[in-house]
């Protein structure tokens, strides 16, 4: 890139050729007013607000779209430029309603701000103003389309970032309107970003609407507790209540975006279901009590039960400090029964891994990959913003190859895909492994011996052997799979043969952190040797005498909810630490109100091993306490050593040492060795395909009313392809009775011809399907 010498407002600047005047001005800290320009979107140059004077140009030029040339002289504040900018402002305001006092954008409105500088004190427009009918964009985005200034940012966002053009601009001239197609809702999992992009109050947050003025809010940094990206948040607080959540820009993590789950889940924080007082079940009755009494009761009871008969389970959505103290408490009592991998079913890698599994690369690299193979992942729903980065790679001519048990629209070009029954996932991967070995004339690895290199496998192998940057990723479904160890080992071989990076897309906000702090059996913090014990599946397969649950909603968070609930019901003593009451009222003996992420300090380690600590943004609700404090006191009451921490930072230091980032990075390793692969036995009957719906992943999201009204939160249905519908004598949109290990469940039949044969897709993690059984395995379906 050549360097050019230009001058803006008399300041000599050196800029790269190819830059626009806007780029150059931004680098020099010169502000040029604009609406349609956005650094992450394509250039539209249609708002005309950034018109500037360029020497020798016959008319003012838009700074956002005009490339710099050597020797260019630009004046952004000359009378000529200001006149052009004021002209545009006058036009923008003539049809804009004067409703700032009741507009949610008031105080953070670009039009309002710029009107102060460029608008007149009164309008010369004396005609009738335009009124535009509002559109229904669903439960998340409120519209006031009369305020729209047609900058087209929301339309471009859909096309370029979300991957789906859900908003368009039909109509001409003054009658141009932003609207969804065919009156449909906006259903993208990234839709909330248009609220931030809208420079006026046309698109605002529906849940936040009319609840506060922007200047009343304190802005506090935080980290999202949902997916494994760890999006950076700016939490807006008023009167000790979270009012809304916005993205905090971090180019290395979430850029300036936020998934809807991260943005709107806060609504679940202050529901009536919150547990605000410690409670103990006494003679079958729930009684509120004090922390002192509750914790002494718990400690006394635990002392009477043999340590190996106690199991500790946590969700991977809790901060590292809590997970660390939970395992420390258990091991202090003499039990290694601690786990957070509640949806996993194959734990045989536990003695074959050399460290914690992770993404295998920085998140930013995902935007510029040439060749990708993603196995068993529901990318858009499980990892909305990482899916966006992969889409970006695909837009830069990267090739995406998919192996999965179901096909949901990726919204980007897919190079090759194989959709197979879950039981065939490993052998399909073995086929790619073989094709790749044959292509490179290398010996076929033993574990891929049974693989068949068919056309698709060879197409994938061809693709994976090209390009410069390559990666193989395993998704949540692969990790939940009963043959996870085989899939992991095969993917490792594929990446080795392809010279690709190998990564595991973390399931949850703290999946990596939980392993790093030792919340798994047989492995302490940073991989130190520790007491062996039962893993999550073993703890729940056979009842233990006591369970310590850290925010675990067993009927929703586990691989096999039927077995989990049965075991927990059979236990004599169940302690539930959770921000919510929920179903645990039925099976717990003690309820301890612990803080959700907004009310405690803590740390999440994201999938790339980034250690992100955060502080509480509001005070705990009622008698709620941070879980690390609860566990610390419990440790003291049980007389255990090493529970003297004064704050969460001390806990983190205890867990990960003085340099958490370095220690975690050194601990991460996807390498496994000694996995034996057996050819799959041909399946008989029907198989279940299950994913966790995007808005059922964790306790907070489940309680967020607006997210629960989205299309993604629709009631579960039984999906199958038309061949299976015909074979079973069912009707599309009719009813079907499905059954696994427990009671039968009647669901609506939905045709999904992208599903493999003999597969019934029923989501897991949903209250309606909790009575079915494990996420994988045989299922029967018959007409009602």
């Amino acid at each position, binding site marked *: 890139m050549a360097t050019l010498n230009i001058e803006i407002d008399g300041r000599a600047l050196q800029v790269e050729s190819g830059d626009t005047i806007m780029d150059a001005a931004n680098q020099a800290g010169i502000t040029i007013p604009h609406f349609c320009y956005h650094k992450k979107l394509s*250039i*539209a*140059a*249609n*708002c*005309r*607000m950034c*018109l500037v004077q360029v020497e020798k140009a*016959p*008319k*003012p030029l*838009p700074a956002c*779209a005009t*490339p710099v040339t050597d020797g260019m002289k630009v004046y952004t504040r000359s009378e000529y430029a200001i006149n*052009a900018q004021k*002209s*545009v402002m*006058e*036009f*923008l305001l*003539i*049809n804009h309603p004067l409703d700032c006092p009741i507009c949610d954008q008031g105080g953070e409105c670009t039009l309002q701000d710029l009107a102060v500088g460029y608008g007149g004190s009164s309008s*010369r*427009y004396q*005609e*009738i103003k335009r009124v535009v009918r509002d559109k229904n964009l669903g439960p998340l985005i409120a519209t006031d389309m009369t305020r729209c*200034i*047609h900058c*087209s940012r929301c339309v471009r966002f859909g096309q370029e970032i979300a991957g789906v053009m859900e908003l368009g*601009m*039909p*109509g*001409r*001239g*003054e*009658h*141009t309107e932003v609207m969804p197609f065919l009156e449909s809702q906006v259903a993208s999992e990234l839709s909330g970003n248009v609220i931030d992009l809208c420079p006026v109050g046309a698109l605002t947050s529906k849940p936040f609407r009319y609840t506060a003025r922007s200047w009343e809010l304190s802005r506090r940094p935080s980290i999202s507790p949902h997916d494994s990206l760890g999006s950076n948040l700016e939490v807006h607080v008023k009167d000790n209540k979270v009012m809304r959540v916005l993205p905090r820009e971090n180019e290395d993590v979430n850029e300036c975006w936020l998934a809807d789950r991260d943005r709107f889940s806060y609504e679940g924080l202050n529901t009536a279901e919150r547990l605000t007082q410690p409670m103990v079940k006494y003679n079958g009755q729930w009684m509120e009590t004090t922390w002192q009494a509750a914790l002494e009761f718990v400690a006394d009871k635990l002392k009477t039960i043999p340590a190996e008969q106690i199991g500790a389970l946590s969700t991977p959505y809790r901060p590292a400090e809590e997970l660390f103290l939970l395992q420390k408490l258990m091991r202090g009592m003499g039990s290694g029964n601690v786990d957070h991998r509640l949806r996993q079913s194959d734990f045989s890698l536990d003695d074959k891994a050399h460290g914690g599994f992770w993404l295998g690369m920085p998140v930013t690299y995902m935007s510029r990959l040439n060749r990708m193979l993603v196995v068993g992942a529901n990318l858009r729903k499980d990892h909305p913003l990482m899916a966006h980065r992969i889409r970006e790679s695909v837009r830069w001519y990267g090739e995406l190859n998919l192996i999965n048990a179901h096909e949901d629209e990726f919204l980007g070009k897919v190079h090759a895909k194989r959709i197979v029954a879950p039981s065939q996932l490993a052998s399909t991967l073995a086929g790619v492994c073989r094709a790749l070995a044959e292509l490179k004339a290398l010996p076929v690895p033993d574990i891929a011996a049974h693989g068949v290199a068919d056309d698709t496998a060879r197409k994938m192998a061809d693709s994976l052997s090209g390009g410069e940057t390559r990666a193989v990723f395993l998704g949540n479904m692969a990790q939940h799979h009963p043959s996870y160890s085989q899939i992991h080992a095969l993917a490792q071989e594929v990446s080795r043969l392809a010279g690709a990076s190998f990564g595991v897309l973390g399931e949850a906000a703290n999946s990596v952190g939980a392993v790093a702090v030792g919340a798994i059996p047989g492995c302490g913090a940073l991989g130190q040797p520790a007491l062996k014990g039962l893993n999550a599946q073993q703890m729940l397969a056979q009842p233990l005498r006591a369970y310590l649950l850290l925010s675990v909603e067993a009927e929703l968070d586990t691989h096999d909810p039927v077995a989990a609930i049965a075991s927990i019901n059979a236990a004599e003593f169940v302690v539930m630490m959770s921000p919510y009451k929920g179903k645990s009222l039925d099976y717990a003996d003690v309820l301890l109100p612990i803080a959700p992420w907004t009310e405690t300090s803590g740390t999440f380690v994201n999938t790339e091993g980034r250690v992100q600590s955060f502080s509480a943004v509001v005070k705990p609700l009622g008698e709620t306490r941070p879980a690390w404090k609860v566990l610390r006191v419990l440790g003291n009451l049980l007389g255990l050593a090493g529970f003297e921490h004064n704050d969460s930072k001390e806990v983190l230091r205890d867990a990960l040492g003085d340099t958490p980032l370095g220690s975690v990075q050194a601990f991460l390793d996807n390498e496994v060795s000694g996995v034996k692969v057996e050819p799959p036995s041909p399946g008989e009957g029907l198989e279940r395909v299950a994913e966790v719906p995007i808005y059922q992943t964790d306790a907070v999201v489940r309680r967020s009313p607006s997210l629960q009204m989205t299309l993604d939160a629709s009631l579960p249905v039984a999906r199958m392809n038309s061949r299976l519908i015909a074979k079973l004598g069912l009707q599309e949109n009719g009813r079907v009775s499905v059954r696994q290990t427990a009671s039968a469940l009647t669901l609506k039949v939905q045709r999904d011809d992208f599903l493999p044969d003999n597969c019934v897709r029923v989501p897991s993690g949903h209250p309606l399907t909790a009575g079915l059984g494990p996420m994988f395995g045989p299922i029967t379906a018959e007409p009602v």
Partner: protein
Amino acid sequence: MSLLKPTPQVCSWTQALDHSASLATYVANGGYQALRRVVTEQVSGDAIIAELKTSALRGRGGAGFPTGLKWSFMPRAFPGDKYIVCNSDEGEPGTFKDRDILRHNPHQLIEGMAIAGYVLGARVGYNYIHGEIFEIYDIFERALKEAREAGYLGDNLFGTDFCFQLHAHHGYGAYICGEETALLESIEGKKGQPRFKPPFPASFGLYGKPTTINNTETLASVPWIVQHGGQAFLELGKPNNGGPKLFSVSGHVNKPGNYEVPLGTPFAELLELAGGVRNGHKLKAVIPGGSSAPVLPAEVMMDCTMDFDCIAKAGSMLGSGAVIVMDETVCMVRALERLSYFYFEESCGQCTPCREGTGWMYRVIHRIEHGQGRPEDMELLNSVAGRIGGHTICALGDAAAMPVQSFLKHFGREFEYHIEQKRCMV
């Protein structure tokens, strides 16, 4: 009349013949000889561009940009796909010349586009035809079929390795699709909205590939120039304004219609050709180049010759050659109201000044026409027009502003009268 001799009529010579649009008529009169010679003798593209430059052929669509220069911008050696596009989206009010070329002489356009394809290295061309003239579209499709069957379009023309496919595409009536980049968007199946330039179509055009876009009349003139040489074409017109041009004379004349006369012909002569002002009325004003061109009062116009330079000097534009004649019975306020409604209706809505300003101007003029004008309205109109012009992506903003400014400049008295007396002066 035929193409065999350098006749003074370049595009409209077939009109007098029977079966004017047929291939047989065209070939019998020397049609496709230029293409055959160029392709079989492998005439160099540079030579043809040099002839075009000599001919001083200027774009007939409105801007009057020198065609030879435009063709020379095309990266002809660029290895990938390139396109030649003909702009037959004749939507400028007052213009009806291109449809007559398509109706009576479609093969000359096809030949011109094939030569352009040969010179510019484009293997595919598109002719974008205005959406409201379906009959003409059908005629052109028939001509395409004839040309394909006769081997003037298709693969390996005349046994050489030159291939050229030509397709017709019709719009749906949006004026803005006559703007070249909006036209490209429309062919691509998108909403017809102009693109910001740069990049220009010559480097990033149809489907992102190098593209040259010319008006129908421009491309139809090419075979004549290749046949008879640039100098002969230039000599038909005047320096810097080569050749004849089709003028669509409409309004208050006795014989409205298309007249192909040499550039540089005095306006008075053209008016006489069109039968003079109707009913013996006095000439009041003329819009010399389509509704977007500034209006000129009769006395200015009568001193003009019909060529790009003279009309520009008089303060207007030759534009597409649509001459709108208004006699003394015309209320200039009402005329402007109609014009400004057109731009209000046809603005694509992309750029703020045009989207908001065209409606504003229309409403104010509408008020004045209906006796609700205010003393400050004229100053307001001038100011609003000035704030639209030069502030938009494409020229529609300027096109909407210029009539307003010119009507106020030359006929301001009528507007004042309307505002004061709340009725018409005429």
